[in-house]
């Protein structure tokens, strides 16, 4: 069984269902729109900020504010791509056509992960540029130190969240169960694990930590625009791919 055949088949599957279009559209729209809104609000608040706050002002991070909500749509995308097979009964047809489970799952995750990466990068760049446009004179430039890395890291983070969700859905096989575990997990559990001393070490390896870390830590003020969680996401992504 040629893997290219299976990859092509998975691409047909993914592009021919409506859930792909609406979950991924939601990722882009929610992330970009919310990022623009928060950027616009931050710009107006800048004048009333204290010196400390101004020093910590991170335009890149602010324009990514929509990602915390946009990633939920990405989770739904990842979960549905895999669990649809089980909930519809398609899995029997799929495995009869491709009896090699490894090849089947690899192709599915490669195609969906690739698409999520593409959409994640588009979202990340759009959120950055449109967010910066809203920030006006407080904006960061893509050429500034660490910014490009942060923006690419944001896209990578989105793709990895989707793949993480696919993995969970492949184990649980039920869309409701998967979403029921992933949604609270991303909102609550990782925060709790990361904030309790005993579990901090575990929490550090969870995918949501880069986001939480950049929210909690106040950094020494510098004159260069901060790279915020984008960079942290990037390093998490690299860490994951190494592991």
């Amino acid at each position, binding site marked *: 069984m040629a893997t290219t*055949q299976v990859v092509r088949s998975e691409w047909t599957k993914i592009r021919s269902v409506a859930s792909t279009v609406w979950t991924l559209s939601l990722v882009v729209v929610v992330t970009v729109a919310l990022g623009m809104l928060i950027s616009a609000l931050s710009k107006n608040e800048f004048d009333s900020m204290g010196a400390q706050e101004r020093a910590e002002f991170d335009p890149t991070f602010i324009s990514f504010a929509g990602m915390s909500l946009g990633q939920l749509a990405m989770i739904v995308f990842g979960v549905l791509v895999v669990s649809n097979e089980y909930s519809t*009964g398609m899995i029997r047809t799929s495995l*009869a056509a491709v009896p090699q489970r490894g090849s089947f799952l690899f192709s599915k995750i490669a195609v969906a992960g690739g698409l999520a990466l593409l959409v994640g990068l588009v979202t990340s760049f759009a959120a950055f540029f449109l967010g910066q446009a809203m920030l006006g004179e407080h904006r960061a430039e893509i050429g500034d130190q660490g910014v490009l890395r942060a923006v690419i890291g944001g896209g990578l983070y989105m793709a990895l969240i989707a793949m993480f969700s696919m993995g969970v859905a492949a184990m649980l096989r039920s869309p409701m169960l998967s979403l029921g575990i992933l949604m609270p997990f991303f909102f609550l559990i990782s925060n709790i694990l990361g904030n309790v001393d005993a579990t901090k070490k575990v929490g550090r390896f969870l995918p949501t930590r880069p986001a939480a870390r950049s929210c909690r830590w106040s950094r020494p003020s510098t004159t260069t625009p901060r790279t915020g969680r984008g960079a942290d996401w990037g390093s998490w992504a690299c860490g994951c791919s190494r592991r």
Partner: protein
Amino acid sequence: MIELEGLTKRYGEKVAVNNLSFTVRPGIVTGFLGPNGAGKSTTMRMILGLDHPTAGDVRIDGKHYQQLKDPLTYIGALLEAKAWHGGRSAYNHLLCLAQSNGIPRSRVREVLETVGLTAVAKKKTKGFSMGMGQRLGIAAALLGDPRILMFDEPVNGLDPEGIHWIRTLMKSLAAQGRTVFVSSHLMSEMALTADHLVVIGQGRLLADTSMADFIARNSRSYVRVRSPQRERLLDVLHQAGVVAVESGDGVLEVDGGKAEHVGELAAQHGITLHELSPQQASLEEAFMQLTAESVEYHAHSETSPRPSGQQWGDGWKRG
């Protein structure tokens, strides 16, 4: 050719398929018959590698399913209806299957034409009726132009026109030299389509025989005769060389005899007849007798069919 050897599937304590060995040969329609819960679907899933056998082996043209390169070109299967994503169009459903097995795109249009779904090819399959769903499942089975076809209860939920279409299709596929393996719980349906019969009950093989043999052995045609002058009639029949058996309640059964012949003999001798009727023990009855012991879920309502010979209240009398 499909070969099963000692195929066994256990779910915990429960044995779904028990040491099943038979061969499904090409060029004929092989019926796979058994009451509900006999293990037909489990057996078919194991053939496709969707379930792992607890013991035993099943091979397709000498190979395990997993070893087949582009399996849809070897064996096409219609399993339970609606094994697809309802939001995907019929065309795209077949296209993704074709691509995974290196089957050309043009073949998708061909099979849609064959099953008569061309007009709704671009529609989402969730709006399909039961019959359209069966047709789509059959299109998927035919997609790879395979030498072996397997249909699990293909006539379920179909209208008479659809049933006729499927019967004709299965026969023509077998006539092309393909192996056709079709399951059903209806003997009457099998009698019309199958050339060979494999009967299972509670996962065990009960019969592996040609349809003609099964009919010859199990369907008895006889003439039922009732007469107030029974003794005389017996004599007359005996003299004419016709064998009659008494079957209680003053009824005579003339095996293999013609009703006309019996009637004429009676008239010649002035014997009064109260009843003269040709009878055919149905295949359904034969099948029910064969599987009576192995039926998993007995219905206990008065309308439930009873194995012949047993009277209502027999169990009570015995108890």
